[in-house]
């Protein structure tokens, strides 16, 4: 992360060089005291209140952060609601380690599919991070390849999710009922994994589009690979959310 931040700065200031006017015109005009002389709360306020920008990041990145914050609230509401119905239901909740077990050979292995799915998604975060790095190093081919790999992992994840859904549906799980207990089990399951799956699918498309632009040299012409990092932010977020779903839905 810190390395990215550094490269990022270099990136933007080189973009600056091409602008008329240059840095002199943009010297701060505030007569605020320099931040270092202010301590404690007023120092923090003065830093944040600096002119033009509160955070030293490009617009797109700032906007993605804010969007993800809002999206966090959506997932939090979903998960809290799920926990609420799970706690307040009068009928026992089906046991996840049995419901989500697969028969492999003669063995019944609990949560195996989910474990693989989680691994796939976490790996994709790794490839994404590498893509961002190569992006800032201007390695077009490597960046494209790594982004496509990430998208591939994402698509695999969605595919496995489709498999899981099919399996549960053939076993009789429906949004309005299931053979083993509280009806809210199916409803929460389809709703939450479905909503997350939509996020992953959107991410796959997003990755593919950006990867194509990397390949065609769009960001070289633009002079900045920021978009790759912004895509990465979204992708890491979707992974992180999955970790919570995994913990709260499958492990509880």
């Amino acid at each position: 992360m810190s390395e990215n931040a550094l490269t990022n700065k270099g990136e933007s200031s080189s973009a600056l060089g091409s602008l008329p006017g240059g840095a002199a015109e943009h010297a701060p005009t505030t007569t605020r005291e320099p931040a270092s002389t202010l301590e404690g709360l007023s120092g923090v306020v003065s830093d944040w209140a600096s002119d033009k920008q509160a955070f030293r990041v490009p617009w797109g990145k700032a906007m993605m952060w804010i969007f993800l914050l809002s999206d966090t609230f959506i997932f939090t509401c979903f998960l809290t609601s799920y926990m609420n119905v799970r706690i307040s239901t009068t009928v026992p909740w089906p046991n996840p380690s049995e419901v989500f077990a697969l028969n492999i050979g003669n063995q019944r292995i609990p949560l195996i599919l989910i474990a693989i799915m989680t691994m796939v998604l976490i790996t994709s975060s790794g490839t994404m991070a590498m893509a961002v790095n190569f992006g800032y190093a201007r390695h077009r081919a490597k960046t494209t390849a790594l982004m496509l790999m990430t998208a591939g992992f994402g698509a695999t994840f969605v595919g496995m999710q489709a498999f899981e859904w099919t399996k549960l549906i053939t076993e009789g799980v429906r949004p309005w009922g299931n053979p083993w207990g509280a009806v809210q089990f199916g409803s929460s399951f389809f709703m939450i994994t479905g909503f997350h799956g939509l996020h992953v699918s959107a991410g796959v498309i997003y990755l593919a589009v950006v990867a194509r632009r990397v390949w065609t040299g769009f960001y070289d012409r633009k002079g900045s690979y920021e978009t790759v990092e912004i895509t990465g932010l979204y992708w890491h977020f979707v992974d992180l959310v999955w970790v919570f779903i995994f913990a709260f839905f499958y492990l509880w």
Partner: protein
Amino acid sequence: MAYVAIADRDHVLHDPETFIRKYIWSQDHKVIAIQYSVTAIAIGLVALGMSVLMRLQLGFPHAFSLIAPNNYYQFITMHGMIMVIYLLTALFLGGFGNYLIPLMCGARDMVFPYMNMLSYWVYLLAVLVLVAGFFIPGGPTGAGWTLYPPQSVLPGTPGSSWGIIFMLVSLGIFIVAFTMGGLNYVTTVLQARCRGMTLMRMPLSVWGIFMATVLGLLAFPALLVGAVMMTLDSLLGTSFFLPAVVSMGQPPTHSGGSPLLFQHLFWFFGHPEVYIVALPAFGIVSDLLSTHARRHIFGYRMMVWAILAIGCLSFVVWAHHMYVSGMNPYFGFFFATTTLIIAVPTAIKVYNWVLTLWRGDIHLTVPMLFAIGFIFTFVNGGLTGLFLGNVTVDVPLSATYFVVAHFHMVMGVSPILVVFGAIYHWYPKITGRMLNDTLGRIHFWLTFLGTYAIYLPMHYLGILGVPRRYYAFGGTEFLPESVQSVNAAITISALFVAAVQLVFLFNLIWSLSKGKPAGGNPWRATTLEWQTPDTPPKHGNWGPKLPVVHRWAYDYSVPGAKEDFIPQNQPPDALTPAGREQEPAS
């Protein structure tokens, strides 16, 4: 200096050439603002029409047969929802937010104009879906604007099969639209201010709109989740919110859901929503008061911190709407406490408004009249809020007309007064012409006094125990006969107030061509939007060079200065040193 690159890049702005690109598919924040405002006001007039119909029924129960009980519930629901969300939220954030943020911060436009344009069109779609609800079998939902399950999706409530779905879908679309706009507003305020415009030099209007947008981005998710779950309940037969109820003699089709969960989700959104409407009003009214009293706003920093504090606290008071819902009584204790705490920063703001007027050079212009009217009305509504915030007082008053009177005062009339004031104030910048002053004064006095004639008696009705959301009364012996006469009087006032708004509409349209030419800065105000090279501002707002800010937004009547106001972008000189972010110590 990594951050200076983008704001001054001129080539990101392509001047639109064709009429369609300029006025329809426009990416200019000013055009989008006007589109938002016109749509919001249009749908708001529909809601006003519905309130007139409701009042006719309440005032003269046997005189009009055109409103059936079902229609009454549908009107209540649509009226409340439209007023709160499709009118006020859209108008303050999509309308004023869009217009003022870039101009007041010294930006050329929002940071992502294309997304901003989409935001409007998606909002329009949400409005159309909402209106479509009137034309489907069963009509729109009549569940009340709170949409509480189980009744909102069970047979017996009007619109429980399709009306509610249309409502939920429309809300979902609205939230998408709002998010696209809101991300723009927040990012623009944080990242795209002009040189010298520190956060602590921003006009309070921007602060209010900014904080309201943040609240929206964090509160609407709860509504979205509630809407998704309720849609699933009613379309797919899930049981998130529906317990096993026997409805109209039919065996239960659902089991084990929690209606309280919906109430929590709804009010986790619903209370911040009150402040989404109130904070922009707070901000705008501060600027109106300061400009028209020719005096710096009192306690600028305190005002900013109060906005931030109110914003944060508004997320921990939601269950004061649920004292009678059957939740754990201990919650009531907690939420009553937080509710009373939030009154502190709110009261600070009121004191500071009054102290801004103190020894000011008060010009009773039309915007100023509305601003002062706002202070009165808001204090009135705020005080009844203190009553309702306390559990023991709220329990008997819940679901009576006292509540109706309270929320109309605090989030109906008060923000609407600010909307009017703001329109009178900024119309000259938007159109280049002044609104007619005499008509404006008539509009103000009749509206202000008229709304008191409507809502003050409602407090009294509420204390008598007249229940809210009732189509007609019967078997209510505890109510004296006079209740009916009061209701009739209220209705007459309401008809009157509604009619007076025609004066305003006429003024808006008439002044467009016949109004007095305004010049660039008719109110002699300090903030940046009045310093644009053209009026109305052109695409890109600032001509070739962005403004540079040297001082805070409230340099009025500075001793020694040539004029009684110093624009924010006026460079410092010996008499008027720059860098002031606080009022003088005296």
